[in-house]
Structures are given as C-alpha cells and as structure tokens.
C-alpha cells in the first residue's frame, strides 16, 4: 500500500507517518505543497492520501479537486485545523473520503485510516 502525506508542516507529516506506521504500508511519500502532491499522486496513484487544507500556494481543497480529477476513486482523508462544518461538508462534496480536525488524535487517525482501507 502506498501512502501520500500532504502538509506544509514537516512536524505534522512525520507525526502522521509515525501514527500510521504498520505492515500494510509499504511506501510513504510526503509533500509540503499542493503542487508537489498533485505531481506525486499523478505519478504513483497512492492508495491513500492525507491532505491538509491551509498551505502556501495551492490550497488543499484545490489539490483535492485535482487528485479527484486524476482518479475519481482516490481515497483522500482531509486533516485540517479548520474546525467548521461547512469546510468539512465542502471537502466531502468535492470527493474527500473523510475529514479529521487538528490537533490530530492518533487513535482517531488510525481508525479513520482503517475505515478508508477497508472500504
């Protein structure tokens, strides 16, 4: 299984990677920007993407549109500090498979990830 972690914070990217570390994940890529994420996703079609929203340059929701444009079946878990329902609903309508709020709760993250890969 290939995982792509997209967040402008390297601390958050590494925390997500550690939280999701398991035998199921064979390959992890990280991207600090939406632009980088789209390029990586187009090249590798990762099984799961975790995606921040507030990033410099291309924001996460635009990045989500592009990933879904590449693969409408992409499994994208949005992980954002934006804690309002409208943003979560917007992300789901655009094709996200799930939405988690920061600060990240490792148990919730693992649970959401399991649900995604079992889907």
């Amino acid at each position, binding site marked *: 299984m290939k995982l792509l972690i997209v967040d402008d914070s390297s*601390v*958050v990217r590494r*925390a997500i990677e550690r939280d999701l570390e398991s035998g199921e994940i064979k390959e992890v890529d990280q991207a600090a920007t939406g632009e980088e994420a789209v390029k990586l996703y187009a090249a590798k079609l990762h099984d799961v993407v975790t995606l921040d929203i*507030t990033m410099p340059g291309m924001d996460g929701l635009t990045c989500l549109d592009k990933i879904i444009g590449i693969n409408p079946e992409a499994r994208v878990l949005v992980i954002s500090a*934006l*804690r309002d329902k409208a943003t979560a609903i917007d992300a789901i309508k655009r094709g996200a498979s799930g939405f988690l709020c920061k*600060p*990240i709760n490792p148990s919730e993250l693992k649970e959401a990830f399991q649900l995604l890969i079992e889907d």
Partner: protein
Amino acid sequence: MDDQDIQVFIAGVRRYFDSLRADERVVIEPPFIKDEERPLLEYTGIIGISGKTHGAVCFTANGLMLKNILGFLNESPSSRETLCDLVGEIANTLSGNAREEFGSDFLISVPVVATEDDSGFRFPEEGRNYVIPIIWRSEKAYLLVCLR
C-alpha cells in the same frame, strides 16, 4: 471581539495541550488586555485573519516549551527549523479551530514565523488586543488575539 469570544480561543488552547496527553494539564491564566509591553517570546507563529474579522492571532513560546511539545510528538532532535515549523503549526491549529464558532468567513492565512531577533510584529492600534497566558510543564507561552 469581546470577552466571550476569547473563550473560543481558550477552549482551543486547552484542546491542543490536552491532545498531547502529557502528564501535566495546561494552566490558562486570566486573559488581559495588552498594555505597552509586547509579550513576545523566542518563537512566534503569526496568522493573519481576514473575512468578517480582521487582524492577527499569534502563538508565542520559548524554545524549551516547544522542545517539550516535540518530545510528546516523539520528534527529535529539535532543530531551529523544527521549532519554527511547530510554532507556526500551533498558531495555525488554534486559529483554524476558532472557525468552529466563527464560521468559514473567519479566513486564516498560512503561518508567518518570527523569532525574537527579527519579529516585526506590532499590535494593531485600534481594537482590543487580548493576551492569553498559558503555562504548561512550568513553561509560559502566550496566545495573542488581535481582532476587529
């Protein structure tokens, strides 16, 4: 921005530090309106706010507190770059969480990080600028809420 709105940020601070699952709970002292002194510490994450509300939200802390937080995130060693990354991420999280109450018109920028040597941050002249003192594991930090 009034005293009741500040409770939204206090709840966010509590949520953030509780998420670290540390052995010590965070202590949040009563917020105060800023005086002439700017309580900026070694590292400051600044988030610009636009939309219905304008201004900035800043989280400022010393390196020691940030290193402690990184320890709870199993992150080591802590370089200056990592400390800057973390202080910006905390400011982002505390600002973004406030949208739970203020809604999606509370627009937040990406973080700008300043250190004590190069901070050009100034409180806005108008409006009430709140300072929320935070104590965690004997280290102090501040959340500055400067909104109109």
